[in-house]
């Protein structure tokens, strides 16, 4: 249960945290990496809106 219910949330959460921290570590590529990482929760929502509506 834990694995299936929390697999995606844990993944999204970890990627978000990496995104929050990585922009602190530098500019340029670090910033771009943080945009992609923090874009993941937004992308997941768009995906759910498009694909998972029932």
């Amino acid at each position, binding site marked *: *249960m834990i694995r299936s219910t929390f697999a995606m949330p844990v993944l999204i959460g970890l990627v978000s*945290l990496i995104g929050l921290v990585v922009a602190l570590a530098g500019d340029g590529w670090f910033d771009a990496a943080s945009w992609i990482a923090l874009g993941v929760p937004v992308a997941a929502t768009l995906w759910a809106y498009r694909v998972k509506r029932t």
Partner: protein
Amino acid sequence: MPGVASIGGGSYAAANVSQQAASMTRGTIKGWFLVHKWSSLICTLFLLMLCLTGLPLIFHDEIDAATGHAPAVSGPASSGEAAGLLPLDTVLARAMARRPGEVPVFMAFDNDGPQMTVTAAPRPDSPATAMTLQILDRRTGEPVGAVEKGGVMAFLLQLHTDMFLGLGGMLFLGAMGLAFVLALVSGVVLYAPFMRKLDFGTVRTVRSRRVLWLDWHNLLGIVALAWMAVVGLTGVVNTLATPITRLWQASELADMTRAYAGRPALPPARYGSIDRAMAAARAALPGVRPQFIAFPGGAFSSAHHYAVFFQGDTPLTERALTPALIDGETGRLTEARRMPWYMLALMYAQPLHFGDYGGLPLKILWAVLTGFTIVVLGSGLYLWLGRRRSTDGAVREVAAGGEVAA
């Protein structure tokens, strides 16, 4: 648990175990449901206010630039020593000539352009509300842009920080932040049984409006969880800025300036040269850029020192400021010492709360995630206001994996 129940003879046992788990946790679910309900009810309206005022504050740099309050100026960095920059004493004298009868309390620098700020106040220990900020061009000593007191952005910032209630208001919002974190934790606990039979990302649009908003509440809450937790917790840390800074002043700073203990405060008339103080500070911490100078008598210095705060020398340590304490009269170094962990925590809590450390795209993502938070708060409120069922009914729905006819 897909597949488990279909394993022949094991199905009965598996079903039994899962039923047992469900019945065992019914009481636990009810407990967490009540924690979620009450922690959310306590903080929701304040969190909505914080989200709505926070949205424009994310873009305050862009808004200030666009409205002419702080236009961007290009040229040598005011934190440097490039040719063409005026001595700090000259800039300070020109700034203070515009605030007769007042004393300087802060001077801050920029790494991207020649603009710098001078903050003046009626007394060295005046509260922040009595201070006046001037943005100046270090090449001319003339103001760039007008910082109006009582502008819309200043109003929003004050509302967001302490609701015009001072330290008490700040600490109250900190308590609301803690309630929000508790709501996040209890929400995640309830997410587990609720989503038992639902795929991640499920949004059931055909059942009822209540189920639709419940699913959006769960989806947006879980995807934005890490961001909400970080912004919530760093917000709580920021509400503690005053007590944290006072602790530093009373312990570390007092220890660094022990030799001066008991002496009367240095009167502003005897303040020595800022340029000489800056030179002594640069000699003590070579190769790093100064961010601001706190004048004697304020919250960031002793009653006898200029405290020159230097940035770290790498992007990651840039925000870890190190103060060099310079005797305000003689301009000689007293001590430079790294900040203790609680001050470092405060310094890193600021960017992680403001979202201003990764360019405009990061700010836009910050705004989108703030929007998600508003929907989570609003849908939570809607689910509570539109409740037609008892706590037990809601607990039954969570325990059943969200599958109760709406």
